[in-house]
């Protein structure tokens, strides 16, 4: 019998909804579910949680996840996700606890350790090109470093019989490339096949982004139902690659949703760099073969990069955002006056303020004034600052709130404050990232 795999998408970010993913898992249409739980910022924030508490820093949805997917696991379904974030060991503990709590037995849990490369980044004083410094120059601010790791350890764990696989910063597409390579028997150095697997992975990894999320723009782009979007799934065989979604769900898998997902977050379409290959999507084609069924093909690949991308978390002090609204005649003038007054009142704090900006929602907040409009009926002043310390950030928040006292008619003050953890990329030779895999019998 020729080989094939059916694999569904279960999550695209750390707080993605699990209810619709569960529907796909329970449909019986897929043998595998992939879960991407991380974004650039999520990873650094997870590291900060772990610094505060050594049992934290992993995906916080694991208890809910285990409850919702216990049935899928009991039926033999396999799950692969970067649930570990900054703490794969703690994630594994939660998974084992969840399996027990939900009465699931006989599941081999595979854990991938070793994406944390903070020591390497500092020891080798890696360059941080976007910041124009090396790691040692800002060593006191460097809080984390994680390498984007590929499909190799996933294939290894599947070969050892793992049914639930988790790791830290496993690259988004690799969560799908691993199962596809394993089930199809594709060698990880067959670059053509890796390009093909990466194409399927790329179309799945963003969840409902591929089925009508971030897509509708009436009256040009209209879909029948976007209330209840289906998560996407792929059927892969040697003959064809088909992307579809669960029947009865909203959204769409069509030419438009597939094309926008194809080019999402890629730079040179002929050289999409992942830990698994240099994929070439430039000649990819998409073809509708039925309602919400699209056939894709034409991907190819070249050897994977010798270096792995590392995201380095950098402590940037505190970020504060405070907002207030003005309406009616003269609202723009009053909002502008408010901004000027705050700037004056903050002069004593300017040494502690790295950057501050004043934006006007409804006018120029998104596009910096590149898209001029008419006079708005109401405007919301937004003051955002990055400060060296909490005291300075508090001063910015205080001055935002004090705008209650004028100019006239300011209302709806809100303030948000949080530690500012920046992330910046670096490159590390692949051989410096030593991964360890572990199988735990539950």
């Amino acid at each position, binding site marked *: 019998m020729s080989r094939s795999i059916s694999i569904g998408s279960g999550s695209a970010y750390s707080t993605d909804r699990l209810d619709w993913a569960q529907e796909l898992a329970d449909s019986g249409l897929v043998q595998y579910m992939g879960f991407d739980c991380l974004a650039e910022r999520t990873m650094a924030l997870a590291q900060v949680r772990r610094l505060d508490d050594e049992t934290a820093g992993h995906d916080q949805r694991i208890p809910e996840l285990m409850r919702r997917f216990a049935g899928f696991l009991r039926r033999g379904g396999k799950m692969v996700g970067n649930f570990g974030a900054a703490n794969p060991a703690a994630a594994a503990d939660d998974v084992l606890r969840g399996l027990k709590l939900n009465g699931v037995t006989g599941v081999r849990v595979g854990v991938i350790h070793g994406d944390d490369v903070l020591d390497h980044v500092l020891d080798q004083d890696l360059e941080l090109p976007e910041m124009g410094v090396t790691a040692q120059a800002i060593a006191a601010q460097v809080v984390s470093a994680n390498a984007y790791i590929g499909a190799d350890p996933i294939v290894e764990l599947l070969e050892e019989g793992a049914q639930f696989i988790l790791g830290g910063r496993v690259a988004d597409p690799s969560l799908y490339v691993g199962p596809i390579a394993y089930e199809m028997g594709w060698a990880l150095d067959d670059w053509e096949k890796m390009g093909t697997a990466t194409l399927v992975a790329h179309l799945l990894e963003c969840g409902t982004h591929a089925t009508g999320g971030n897509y509708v*723009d009436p009256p*040009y782009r209209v879909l029948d139902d976007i209330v209840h979007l289906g998560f996407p799934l792929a059927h892969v065989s040697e003959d064809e690659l088909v992307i579809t979604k669960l029947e009865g769900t909203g959204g769409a898998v069509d030419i438009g949703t597939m094309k*926008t997902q194809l080019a999402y977050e890629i730079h040179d379409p002929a050289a999409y760099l992942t830990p698994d290959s240099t994929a070439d999507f430039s000649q990819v084609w998409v073809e509708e073969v039925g309602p919400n069924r699209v056939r894709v093909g034409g991907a190819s690949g070249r050897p994977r990069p010798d270096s792995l991308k590392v995201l380095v978390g950098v402590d940037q002090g505190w970020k504060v955002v405070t907002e207030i609204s003005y309406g009616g005649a003269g609202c723009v003038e009053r909002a502008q006056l408010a901004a000027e007054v705050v700037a004056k009142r903050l002069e004593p704090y300017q040494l502690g303020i790295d950057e501050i900006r004043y934006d006007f929602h409804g006018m120029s907040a998104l596009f*910096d004034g590149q898209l001029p409009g008419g006079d708005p009926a109401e405007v919301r002043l937004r003051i*955002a600052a990055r400060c060296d310390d909490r005291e300075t950030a508090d001063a910015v928040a205080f001055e935002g709130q004090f705008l209650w006292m004028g100019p006239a008619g300011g209302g709806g003050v809100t303030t948000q404050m949080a530690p500012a*953890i920046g992330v*910046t990329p670096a490159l590390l030779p692949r051989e410096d990232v030593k991964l360890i895999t572990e199988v735990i019998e539950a």
Partner: protein
Amino acid sequence: MKLREFAYSRSGDKGDIVNLCVFVYDDANWEVLRRELTVEKVRDKFGSLVKGEITRYELPGTKGLNFVMTEALGGGVSMSLRTDPHGKSYQSLLLEIDIDADEEIKPRLG
């Protein structure tokens, strides 16, 4: 006419880099898009939002373009103080670009 009348777009972010893909609803408009939507037109529309380079790539298989813009997010999602640090809304600004070739273009809506 506005690009929005015959093409669609999505933005994506990586660090301080934004990519904006553009596809035509009707393949008949592909050559016009390819000819008219230049880096210069995109740079003119984005102005102060993009401090770095803009590179244009083609996706001939799907009849699309991909614009990659560096230093485009005020420092990237984790550092930026902008309202939209991902640049998710950039697709809408791109679709505001005027394309001066009305007689050649088949618009999405009759």
